[in-house]
């Protein structure tokens, strides 16, 4: 058994290739000049530059949150990172066919052939390479219904009124250390606007990739679903293998106006570092949604990558009868550390939230669920259900649960349940005597453990997530 374990644990990171493309990289370090440079490169309006500078000044006064998250890492030297890296292009891109073929190859390796997808999958993709959006598929078709799906940079140019109205309205620029950093230096991201009453006819998707060494990726996503609109958004991430750590500090803001629905799904498979914990992505992400009356925001995440994950997709349930959901599978293996969970802030009456978190720890991984359920005095009849289950594989890993439940209203009801267990030997035995080998048996059990979350994922992601889980875990059981 142990030899299988080794061979599988040592399985190489499949997405660890580097694409040799000339990049336009900003000098290392962070100061007002860099922010001005980014803003200038992106030909941004003055108000946005001002906003960035304000964020930078705020950030300079903040300190990195080291005391409360259950993660340890050597402090990041923010002056040795390059804050802008763009694939060098000669002329502005007219259509997707003008994109550098090497880039498109890179995406093909990742399993998202843009053109094929356009034809077959029916998923509109906005691909972010390092920090710049390289092309958006299916744009024309979406435009027919008034849906805007473009890179953030383009949105700033084409729809400044929308961007200016909603940017920072959910995650204020001084929200936290990483969000402030992002606000100062974000280089691109995705922007979605779904007009009143429109149901987006297809899933929208972004693929992130960090390619250049010593760069950080700071994308910013803003999704607005106007009254009664609905949209499902998918996000996936990979990065090449490198010895040094790379920083990913993204911000995602969701605005669900009255009666709107936003479903946001993530499959995060950033490079996790090698078995000794060298390299890997520091994934410090702020994700938050704001739900107006009768609106619904649903986060689903499958976190299998990154050396460190620090991420709490949250919902501010402001409107009456609004609904928040959080479904998460977080897997740590090797020396990965994850401190992830959610915040559900109940402000409106009869607001409801559901949290289902499945944590799997293997190898020397440390997995923490950290969640907050807050019911404010005016949230009459609020309801929360939380379930967080952990599974440990081996005794060198850890599973931790830090739920904060703060209730200030007697008519509300909150429930929290958590359990920790190991894979049942009897279950493995049963499956083996039905003819399955150990690896497949474990895969079936783990997938069963995560089923409640996977069923929330859109089809194509669910398949990918199950495979990823297999890759992340196979062989870690002895």
């Amino acid at each position: 058994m142990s030899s299988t374990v080794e061979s599988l644990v040592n399985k190489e990171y499949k997405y660890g290739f580097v694409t040799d493309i000339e990049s336009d990289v900003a000098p290392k370090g962070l100061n007002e000049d860099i922010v001005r440079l980014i803003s200038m490169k992106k030909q941004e309006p003055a108000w946005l530059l001002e906003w960035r500078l304000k964020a930078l000044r705020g950030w300079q006064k903040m300190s990195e949150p080291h005391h409360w998250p259950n993660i340890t890492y050597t402090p990041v030297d923010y002056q040795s990172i390059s804050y802008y890296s763009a694939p060098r292009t000669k002329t502005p891109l007219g259509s997707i066919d003008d994109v550098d073929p090497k880039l498109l190859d890179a995406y093909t390796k990742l399993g998202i052939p843009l053109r094929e997808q356009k034809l077959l999958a029916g998923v509109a993709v906005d691909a972010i390479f390092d920090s710049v959006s390289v092309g958006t598929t299916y744009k024309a078709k979406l435009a027919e219904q008034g849906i805007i799906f473009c890179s953030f940079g383009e949105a700033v140019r084409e729809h400044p009124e929308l961007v200016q109205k909603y940017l920072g309205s959910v995650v204020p620029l001084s929200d936290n250390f990483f969000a402030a950093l992002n606000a100062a230096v974000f280089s691109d991201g995705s922007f979605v606007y779904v007009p009143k009453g429109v149901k987006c006819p297809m899933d929208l998707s972004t693929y992130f990739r960090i390619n250049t060494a010593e760069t950080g990726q700071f994308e910013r996503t803003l999704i607005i679903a106007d009254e009664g609109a609905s949209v499902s958004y998918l996000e996936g991430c990979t990065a090449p293998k490198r010895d040094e750590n790379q920083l990913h500090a993204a911000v995602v803001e969701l605005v669900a106006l009255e009666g709107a629905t936003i479903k946001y799904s993530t499959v995060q498979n950033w490079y996790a570092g090698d078995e000794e914990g060298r390299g890997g992505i520091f994934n410090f992400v702020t994700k938050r949604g704001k739900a107006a009356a009768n609106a619904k925001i649903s986060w689903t995440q499958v976190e299998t990558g990154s050396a460190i994950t620090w991420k709490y997709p949250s919902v501010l349930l402001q409107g009456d009868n609004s609904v928040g959901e959080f479904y998460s599978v977080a897997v740590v293996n090797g020396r990965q550390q994850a401190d992830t969970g959610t915040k559900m802030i109940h402000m409106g009456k009869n607001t409801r939230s559901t949290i289902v978190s499945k944590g799997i720890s293997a190898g020397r991984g440390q997995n923490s669920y950290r969640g907050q359920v807050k019911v404010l005095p005016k949230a009459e009849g609020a309801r929360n259900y939380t379930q967080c289950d952990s599974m440990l594989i081996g005794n060198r890993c850890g599973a931790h649960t830090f739920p904060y439940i703060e209730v200030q209203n007697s008519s509300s009801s909150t429930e929290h349940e958590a359990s920790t267990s190991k894979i049942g030997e009897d279950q493995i035995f049963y499956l083996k005597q039905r003819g399955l080998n150990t690896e497949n048996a474990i895969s079936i059990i783990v997938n069963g453990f995560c089923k409640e979350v996977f069923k929330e994922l859109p089809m194509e992601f669910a398949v990918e997530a199950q495979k990823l889980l297999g890759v992340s875990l196979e062989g870690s059981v002895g």
Partner: protein
Amino acid sequence: MTEPFVQEFEARAGTATADGPEWLEPIRQAAMERFARSGFPTARDEEWRFTPIGPIVQGSWRAASGTSGELGREQLDSFIFGHPDWTTLVFVNGVFHDALSSVGPLPGGVRVASLAEALRSDGASIECHLARHAPVDGSPFTALNTALMREGGVVLVGAGVDLDMPVHLLQVSTAEAAGTVAHPRNLIVVERGARASVIESYVTLAPGRSYWTNPVTEVAVAAGAWLEHTRIQRESEAAFHVGLTQVDQARDSHYRSFSFAMGGALARHNLHVRLNDENIESLMYGLYLTRGEQVVDNHTAIYHDRPNCRSWEVYKGILDGRSRAVFNGKVFVQPEAQKTDAKQTNRNLLLSDGARVDTKPQLEIFADDVKCTHGATVGRLDDLARFYARSRGLSTSAAERLLTYAFAAEVAGEVALVPVREELDRLVFERLGSR
């Protein structure tokens, strides 16, 4: 804010009336240094985030100094569970009161004495326990207690002794306690194979007075020993109470704790239990009743360091008025602690709209072959149950009282000592009846 305490410490160190044996001096000194260095915790300190200790920090407190007035035994009648025959050590405003105390005939190998007395005559037998279990690094309040402790109860139960009657350590505050702070220090040692039941009470004869009690109780349960530890906190509703109970358990031992709290403007109790060897059982029950503007905070931590141990924890709260309850329960399971079975539950019942609960059940698990669960709920009485009770002819208020009582009885019923259980029932009913 630490200055007055440092001065008090130095003033006392200079006097001829030594506070204890020589070995204790460096411990006190280190504790005082530790407190002076760290000061009081702040809201930035995760452990103290939800505990509003502002009034303690900003207050100016004189050292509690007993009582000058006459106090009769009949005044304590309502606190002794109808059992004047139980061995009871009475402390009035932090000072041992010999006349009110009674030490009944005890079996051989059992020693019950005040701390000051024990330090004078049994120094050697408590040297290996006193201040060895509760680390001063754990909290500034513990450090302060260790530096300034003077009085408290010492209960030593020798190997193999079955102590059939409970021992009661009763801390009483009177009107003269206003504006003072006491640092009671208790030590309970149950040796190999022994069996005992100890009650620790904090009560008041002056319900409206504001004072501060800062107790620390160290408990050592040796191999195969059995201890029931009942803690009753009925301080003045204007008082402050920040206490620690630190327990060390050895192989095959059984510890059963019940923590009851209904007093204090701010009352916090930390219960830390270390399971240092295999096959240990720990049961922790808690019940808190709050009203008005009270804040009651329970922090528990269970350290599963070794395999094959069981811990079971149920804390329940009933909140009224604009009161607030805080619960934080930690379960640590070390890599070695395979086959751990740990269960933790915190349930809160809100009787009014202004009441508020902050609960944080927390698991930190490093071993895989374990069964660990926790659950927390916050809510009000079940409408269906209320309707059912009404349909059986009960008035709304009687139905609510009955259901609330039933909610409390689930934990109160776990107290093994019948007279204590009956007294708790009475207190719960009285509180519900006064609504």
